[in-house]
């Protein structure tokens, strides 16, 4: 039995070193359920100061792993001290999807806020967002990078799968035009932690061109 302080962030959250941001988020949520101040399951088990220390460790692990830059730095330190093998981290498997019925929607911590931090620190996503127009395929590649299943987007935005697929496939004839499309695009962008107006205007610009 290792004490918590001796665990690395991945061990602490009980995830693999190649876990996607969504998996990191879910693992954190699970641990939070276990240790937060009002958790029934751990009621009275820890003195208050020990509980605070554990929660601080979890927060630290979470914020480090949710940011692409700080995560890369942390991984390098693990590789240097021999905890992590280099080949494991060559390409983080960001495309893996997770259970769409995640507990995230019940959480006080919004997944959207957490995805935002990945978006802002991810070079690939930033490059797409810097372009003047955005295609459906590019939106899909951002979604894949974030590891968010389309079902999750449909559930959050209440936009039908049919329309979301049409947006990603650039099948304009299948999408209701005008104000509806703009609304769908905004909801889609917001769900993925992107700037809703930017997504809508650049997609519509490409469509008109």
């Amino acid at each position: 039995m290792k004490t918590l302080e001796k665990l690395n962030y991945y061990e602490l959250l009980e995830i693999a070193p190649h876990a996607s941001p969504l998996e990191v988020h879910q693992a954190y949520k699970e641990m939070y359920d276990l240790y937060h101040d009002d958790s029934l399951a751990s009621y009275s088990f820890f003195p208050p100061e020990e509980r605070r220390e554990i929660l601080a460790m979890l927060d630290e692990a979470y914020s480090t792993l949710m940011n692409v830059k700080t995560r890369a730095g942390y991984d390098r330190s693990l590789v240097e001290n021999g905890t992590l093998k280099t080949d494991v981290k060559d390409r983080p498997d960001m495309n893996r999807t997770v259970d769409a019925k995640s507990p995230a929607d019940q959480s006080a911590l919004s997944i959207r806020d957490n995805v935002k931090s990945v978006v802002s620190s991810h070079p690939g996503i930033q490059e797409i967002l810097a372009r003047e127009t955005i295609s459906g395929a590019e939106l899909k590649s951002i979604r894949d990078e974030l590891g968010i299943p389309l079902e999750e987007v449909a559930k959050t935005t209440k936009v039908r799968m049919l329309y979301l697929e049409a947006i990603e496939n650039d099948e304009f004839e299948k999408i209701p035009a005008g104000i509806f499309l703009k609304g769908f695009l905004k909801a889609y962008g917001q769900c993925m932690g992107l700037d809703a107006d930017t997504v809508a205007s650049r997609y519509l610009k490409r469509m008109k061109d």
Partner: protein
Amino acid sequence: MNSINQSRSECTPFIWPIGGGKGGTGKSFLTINIGILLARQGYKTLLIDADLGTPNLHTIIGLPNPKTSLSDFVNKTVSTLEETVLEMPVHNLFLISGARNKLDIANFAHEQKMKMLRAISRLHYDYILLDLGAGTAFNTIDFFTLSDSGIFVCIPEPTSIENIYRLIRSVYIRKIRQVLQINCFRNLAGQAEAQNRDAVIQHPEYLLTTLKQIDPEQGGNIEKILQAFQFKLVVNQVRKRDNPRTGTLICKIIEKHLGMRIQFIGNVGFDDRVHETVCMKSPYILKYAHSQTALDLHGVLQGITGGTNRQTAALAASTSI
């Protein structure tokens, strides 16, 4: 079926102490109903009312005036513990009641207690379920030394969970002490307890950490022995709005922080009719055999017997001889 049971009963019985820390969590409820289910599966099953000071297993099972009880053995009115065993209306089910225990029995002398524990471990049954009293007194905790197994019952309320953790920590430290009684560990125990006195009282997990620091090899051995225990957790009186994962989370806390394996074997749903069956002095499972709560109890039974039907295994063994 009898011959199979007799041959099984010649082996060491599976002894399951059932504890809950707090009163009213359903220890007696579980003991009776699981006992009946075990007996119906063909296991020769003995229920012992080990709630020495405030016994009432006999009342729940509908036997208001048992002729013999545990105190007859403690007071030497009878010479063997077997003589206090009562037959139950359910085939294969037996009871050692506490109904006639003297009021001060819970404070009986150490030798008497050791004599009783030895006698229990020598009984010939397939399963022995010990319905323990509330609290964490020595006389409750000591029943856990009889076996490598134990069932903890709690309800999803902070008061019950607070007490279940106290009970589990008390059992944990009793188990460590039991292991440390073995000669080769005795010196190590003295050193560790001297170094970390707080651990012995509030946080037994630190005792193991200290042991491992002083002597990593022997500390590791003790840890292995502790991990071999088969503890189970049942969450009783679960209502629709309760988090069904509380039991899983409790087990996770215990594994992570006490290094002790404990398996969550099920939620048992709250049913108003339990109260009614207690008032009627009739076991719940006999009256409401097909309710959701009864199904939950079957799930708990599977968790106890390991999900395998040993009756079938025993039958196969006996036919091959």
